[in-house]
C-alpha cells in the first residue's frame, strides 16, 4: 500500500520484503519501507506490531529471516561497521549501568566507538547532556535517574557524534509534557541540520506534530506509507446534515448517489438553546473524493424541502485513518 518509492529520492533506510519469524510467529512480514533522506519519518503502530523488531533488523541487532535492509545506501548487516558510526540510535528504551553516572555511561559508550575521537570526548559528552537538558545531573548515578531522565540520557547517547540518521524508538516514553515538547523541538532542529530522523511511536498526536512522512505497521505488516498529507488525503470525508426532516434528507442524499444514514435521532442534535432546533437530528453520509461539490448537495437538499439547519463536510482525522488501518486495538489514547 502507499505510494511507490521514487527511485530518484535517496533513501536513508530501505527494506525490501523484510521478514522476521520467531518460531511460528511472524513479527515482521514482508515490509517494504522507504525512508527518504532528510525526512522526519514517523513509524507508527500499536504495541507489538513489529516496529522495534524492524528497527533491530535495520540496526543489525537481529538477522532477518528473509528480505534485505539497506541503511544510508549500504546493505545491512554486511556493511554494519561502515554504517552504524553514522547512525545514532535509541532502541527500545534506555539501557545504562545504574552504578555509573550519566556522564560516565556516555564516556564508556563513546570509547567503544572507534571513530569517536577521545580528545573531544569530554566536550562532546558535555554538549550532548546539555542538549537534552541533563547538564545538571551529569554526575548523578543513573540508578537515581527517573525514567524520563534515563530516556533523555538515551537521546544524549544518540547525539554524541554528528549523525546522518537518527533512529529513535519511542523517544518520548516516560517524558513529562515539557520533555515531550523538548524532544519535538530537538527533532525539528536536528532535521533542520539535515539529519534524517526515524521516530517510532504509538502516539499519533506526537508523530502528527513533528513528522513529514509516516508509515503504519499493523500485526507485522506495513499497511500505509507516505507523506503526512498523502495519508490525510486518503481518509474519507463525510457530510453531516442537521435537520428535523430526517426522512426527506435521507431520500434526497440517496438520490444523489450517496449512502446516508441517520447518526442522531430527532431531538438529540439540538441543545444550542434555539427553540427551532429542539427536534433536530443528524444525517450523515460518506463523501467520495469525486462526488459532487458540497454546495450542490445543499442546493439539492433545500430543493427537496429539507430544512437544513446545519451542514458540514468533515475530513477524517488522521486518528480515524489509523483506527481504520490498524483496528480498534490501537492505543492512541495513551
Amino acid at each position, binding site marked *: 500500500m502507499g505510494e511507490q518509492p521514487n527511485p530518484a529520492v535517496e533513501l536513508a533506510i530501505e527494506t525490501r520484503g523484510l521478514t522476521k519469524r520467531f518460531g511460528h510467529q511472524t513479527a515482521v512480514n514482508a515490509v517494504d519501507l522507504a525512508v527518504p533522506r532528510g525526512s522526519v519519518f514517523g513509524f507508527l503502530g500499536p504495541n507489538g506490531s513489529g516496529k522495534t523488531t524492524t528497527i*533491530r533488523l535495520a*540496526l543489525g*541487532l537481529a538477522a532477518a529471516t528473509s528480505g534485505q535492509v539497506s541503511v544510508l545506501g549500504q546493505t545491512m548487516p554486511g556493511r554494519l*561497521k561502515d554504517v552504524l*558510526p553514522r*547512525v545514532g540510535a535509541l532502541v*527500545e528504551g534506555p539501557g545504562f549501568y545504574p552504578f555509573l553516572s550519566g556522564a560516565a555511561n556516555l564516556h564508556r559508550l563513546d570509547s567503544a566507538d572507534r571513530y569517536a575521537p577521545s580528545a573531544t570526548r569530554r566536550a562532546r559528552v558535555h554538549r550532548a547532556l546539555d542538549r537534552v537538558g541533563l547538564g545538571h545531573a551529569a554526575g548523578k548515578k543513573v540508578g537515581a535517574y527517573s525514567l524520563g531522565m534515563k530516556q533523555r540520557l538515551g537521546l544524549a547517547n544518540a547525539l554524541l557524534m554528528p549523525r546522518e540518521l537518527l533512529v529513535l524508538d519511542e523517544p518520548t516514553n516516560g517524558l513529562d509534557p515539557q520533555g515531550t515538547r523538548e524532544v519535538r523541538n530537538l527533532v525539528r532542529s536536528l532535521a533542520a541540520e539535515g539529519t534524517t530522523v526515524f521516530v517510532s511511536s504509538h502516539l499519533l498526536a506526537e508523530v502528527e506534530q513533528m513528522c513529514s512522512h509516516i508509515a503504519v505497521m499493523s500485526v507485522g505488516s506495513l499497511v500505509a506509507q507516505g507523506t503526512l498529507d498523502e495519508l490525510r488525503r486518503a481518509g474519507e470525508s463525510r457530510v453531516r446534515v442537521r435537520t428535523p426532516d430526517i426522512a426527506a434528507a435521507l431520500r434526497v442524499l440517496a438520490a444523489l448517489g450517496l449512502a446516508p444514514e441517520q447518526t442522531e435521532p430527532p431531538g438529540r442534535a439540538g441543545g444550542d438553546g434555539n427553540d427551532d432546533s429542539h427536534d433536530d437530528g443528524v444525517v450523515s453520509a460518506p463523501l467520495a473524493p469525486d462526488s459532487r461539490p458540497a454546495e450542490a448537495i445543499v442546493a439539492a437538499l433545500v430543493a427537496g424541502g429539507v430544512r437544513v439547519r446545519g451542514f458540514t463536510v468533515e475530513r477524517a482525522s488522521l486518528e480515524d485513518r489509523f483506527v481504520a488501518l490498524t483496528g480498534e486495538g490501537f492505543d492512541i489514547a495513551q
Partner: protein
Amino acid sequence: MLLALAAVPVLIAVAVRLSSSPPEPGRGPPFLDRVTQNGLFVSITALVVCIPLFLPLTVGVVAGDTIAGEANLGTLRYLLVVPAGRVRLLLVKFAGAAAFCLAATLTVVASGALIGAALFPVGPVTLLSGDTISVGESILRSLLVAGYVTVSLLGLSAIGLFISTLTVVPVGAMAATIVLSVVAQVLGALPQFEWLHPWLFSHYWLDFADLLRQPIAWTSFGDNALLQAGYAAVFGALAYGRFVTKDILS
C-alpha cells in the same frame, strides 16, 4: 569479591596464630603446618584453600556476567549499535575475565604475604625439594604460583563466557559456570572416570607444587597451560559461533 578473597588468608593466619598447639603435619590443608615457621606460606595455604571452590565461584560470577549482564541491563544493544563489534566485545570481555583471574589470585597471594609477615616470622624458605631460597626469591615463587593459578582459571573463564552468550539472565550463567566447575572436580575425584581426568579443566588445578622445587619442574605448568588454552580455544569458538549470529532482543 576481592575483599572476600583477601579475607581468606587473614582467616587462616589468625586461626593458626590463636590456636595453642601448632598444626600437625598432615592435618588440615597442605602447607598449613609450615605457616608458623614462615609467614610466607600463608599465601600458598590460602591459595590451596581457595582453588576448589572460592576462586571458581568468583570467576564463575565474573565470567557468567560478561555478556548476559550487559544483555540484562540493556547495555548490550547500545554497545553493538555503537558499533563495538561483536568479536571485539567478546575479546574484551574475555580479557576482562582473565584480568579478574589474575587480580583474584594476586589478591590472595598479597594478602597472605602481608598477614603472614605481620603474624609470623619471615625468613628463607625451605622448598619441597629441601633447598632453601631467599625471601626475595620466595616472593617470586609466590607470584609464579599466582600465575599458575591464573592460567588454571582461564578455561573456566572461557566456559563462563560461552554460557553467558546463551542467556540474558546473568545469575543463570554464573550458577551454570560454578556448577560445571564443581562437577569437573567431582568427576576428577572419582577413579571410575580416570580416562577422563586429563581432559578436565580442573585436572591440574592443585599441581603447582612443582613450582616449589629446585630446579623448577615446568612440565605441569606447560601441561596446564596447554589444557587451558585448549578449553579457551574450544569455548571461545563456541562463544564466537553463538554470539556473532545471535539476535539481540534484550
